[in-house]
């Protein structure tokens, strides 16, 4: 577990996550979806989090924007966010260091008020992330409207529902009316649609999500996320459900966004190619932990952790197809607390597992650069076959319980390709 010293946060660090843990308390027991995760997001940078199904990458994203629903709960860690106004508001309390505020120690209403204005999020399947019976333009106008209403008084959520009583709400529930949003936010919504490259934005704004193609709808989602001019845009598998040529369009928009200088992007995906094209720094997640992180070159060119090596070895190379792939044997372990092994969770599948992999493994510094860090003993000493772990035979053992459908961990098991 990375040592939690007083956070040395330099100015260009926008968000610093320290030792974040999120757990799900289900009937089958406690599931450690995210455990002791730390990473930083600097100004207009793209930070990548890569991992397979069940690694906890989506839960990390949801924890960042405080959207973990029950039975999940953020049980520990700090989320430092640089916001001069906020720091001044909570000056003097232990939640503030310089301009950075630990969001975990401020009231929940304050965290909620940051949604849309400081943090915003786009999801893997845009079709299910938009309300099917409300027009796309109206939903984007809502995002603009809530920020406009909050401008007056950011902390009090009451301001967001001024002049929008229960009566008007119920009418809205039945008739397609625009009483929550006003003309101005609709004009801005159309502007946003144009900015993300949707043709005929005025006409398309009056259409419904099911009349958009996958690529167009993801652009609309990005437009909606930009409504509040957020500092950090969290993208959870944004292009996984899209075709390659459409994916390239969306990745370009995100790249444009980051180069425009106002927004940093947290890119969460299982696709190593997308990570390579988009990210400056990357963290590799396995079984709820970041097992290796650093600059892109550190992790891709001289990975130390056997899981990272296995991951890179499993990806077929488009330009130089190898005769045979080197897969990682076995299955991802269940994250059930009572079944989690001691020490490194990858030991059972690791070809270079040693006896002292059974004790808790601290995060060592990698040698590729000062940002390169690895949670593996191999960063500290060479592999010594004499002390190899005995039961790491290569046979795929079938006894452990299935990981894909661990209900609770919200990392959806199957990544749909088509």
């Amino acid at each position: 577990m990375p040592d939690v010293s007083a956070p040395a946060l330099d100015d260009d660090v926008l968000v610093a996550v320290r030792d974040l843990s999120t757990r799900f308390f289900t009937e089958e027991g406690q599931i450690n979806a995210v455990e002791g995760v730390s990473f930083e997001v600097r100004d207009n940078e793209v930070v990548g989090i890569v991992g397979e199904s069940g690694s906890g990458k989506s839960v990390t994203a949801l924890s960042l924007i405080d959207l973990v629903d029950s039975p999940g709960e953020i049980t520990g860690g700090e989320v430092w966010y640089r916001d001069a106004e906020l720091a001044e508001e909570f000056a003097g309390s232990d939640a503030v260091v310089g301009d950075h505020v630990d969001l975990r120690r401020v009231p929940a209403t304050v965290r909620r008020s940051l949604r849309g204005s400081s943090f915003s999020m786009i999801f893997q399947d845009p079709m299910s992330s938009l309300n099917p019976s409300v027009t796309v333009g109206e939903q984007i106008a809502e995002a603009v409207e809530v920020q406009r209403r909050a401008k007056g008084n950011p902390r009090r959520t009451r301001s967001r529902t001024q002049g929008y009583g229960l009566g008007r709400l119920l009418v809205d529930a039945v008739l397609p009316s625009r009483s929550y949003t006003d003309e101005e936010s609709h004009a801005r919504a159309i502007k946003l649609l144009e900015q993300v490259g949707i043709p005929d934005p005025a006409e398309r704004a009056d259409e419904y999500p099911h009349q958009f193609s996958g690529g167009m709808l993801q652009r609309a989602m990005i437009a909606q996320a930009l409504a509040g001019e957020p500092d950090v845009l969290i993208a959870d598998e944004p292009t996984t459900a899209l075709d390659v040529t459409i994916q390239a369009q969306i990745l370009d928009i995100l790249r444009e966004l980051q180069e425009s200088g106002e927004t940093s992007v947290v890119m969460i995906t299982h696709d190593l190619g997308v990570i390579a094209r988009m990210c400056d720094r990357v963290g590799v997640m396995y079984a709820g932990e970041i097992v290796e992180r650093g600059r892109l070159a550190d992790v891709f060119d001289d990975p130390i952790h056997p899981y990272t090596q296995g991951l890179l070895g499993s990806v077929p190379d488009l330009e130089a197809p190898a005769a045979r792939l080197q897969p990682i044997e076995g299955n991802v372990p269940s994250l059930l607390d009572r079944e989690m092994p001691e020490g490194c969770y990858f030991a059972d599948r690791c070809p270079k597992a040693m006896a002292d992999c059974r004790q808790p493994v601290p995060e060592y510094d990698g040698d590729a650069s000062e940002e390169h860090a690895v949670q593996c003993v191999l960063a500290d000493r060479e592999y010594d076959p004499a002390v190899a772990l005995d039961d790491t035979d290569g046979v795929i053992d079938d006894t452990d319980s299935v990981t894909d459908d661990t209900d609770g961990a919200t990392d959806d098991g199957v990544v749909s390709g088509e």
Partner: protein
Amino acid sequence: MSQGRFIAKRVLQGVGVVWGVVSIVFLLRFITPGSAINAVAPLDADRETRQAIARELGLNQPLHVQYGDYLVSLLQGDMGFSYVRGQEVTTLVFSKLPATVELAVAATVVAIGLSIPLGVVSATRRNQPVDWLATLFSLAGISTPNFWLGIMLILVLAVQLGIFQTSGRAVAAVEVAAAVVGPASFVKTLRLWLAHITLPAVALGTYFTALVTRLTRSGMLDELGKPYVRAARAKGLPEAVVRYKHALRNTLIPVITVLGLQLGTLIGGAVITEAVFSWPGLGTLVIRSINLRDWPVLQGSLIVIGTSFVLVNILVDVVYSSLDPRVVND
């Protein structure tokens, strides 16, 4: 397809269903033991008189001819004569229809008005007292036979407390509306109308209130778990807008559909509620026509009930298509 075309399609289907209803009613007559003749002919009538009556009623012609005549007369609005009272079936049935419609509408308004807010509140305040109360009430509501509830209401409210009338229908809703002119008479007629319709409406409406409460509650819980709700919260929308403007709107779609389906249960319930409160509607007419084997009246009532069911279902489709855009602009 535009909304107009969707409704046109539903109307065409409705016409098909009405034609089906009419045909089945026509066929029912042929699977009844002891056909219409002995309902009309005096008991000791000999063969010739029975033959004469058969000829007069046109029963001896081949089936398809009878069917043809039956349809033609139907289109002219003539559904034959009541065996018992010799009265025009059409006028008889349509004179009784308003009472049943009034009762059904009153019950539905009570049901929807109460149950949707109750369902929403119990979904948003899950496992709190209001949720437990709503769940128990709605469970009892759908498990109570409405005629028994009617009798118990009569016992408690009418016999013991003497507030309401237990039978008959003093004044029609339309008269109440007409009486609006003079304030004094309006209050009196309104009170008279309420005194009569409240008990039957509550007895009939309880099952529906309970059913819609359960539907709204489970629908709301279902919608609140969907990804678009989480995405709405992620853009900073206040909880009230997320719940009512987004989640509730999508909850109403399946609720409306089921209401359309459960319409039959409502009309069935009205029939038996009328029997308990001797409410002069179509239901009482149906029961009397069966007991007296007055076949044309029963036939006319079934046709009117079936057709009104189809009309109301088309209305439900119109509401449905304005709520769910996917149905209309594909």
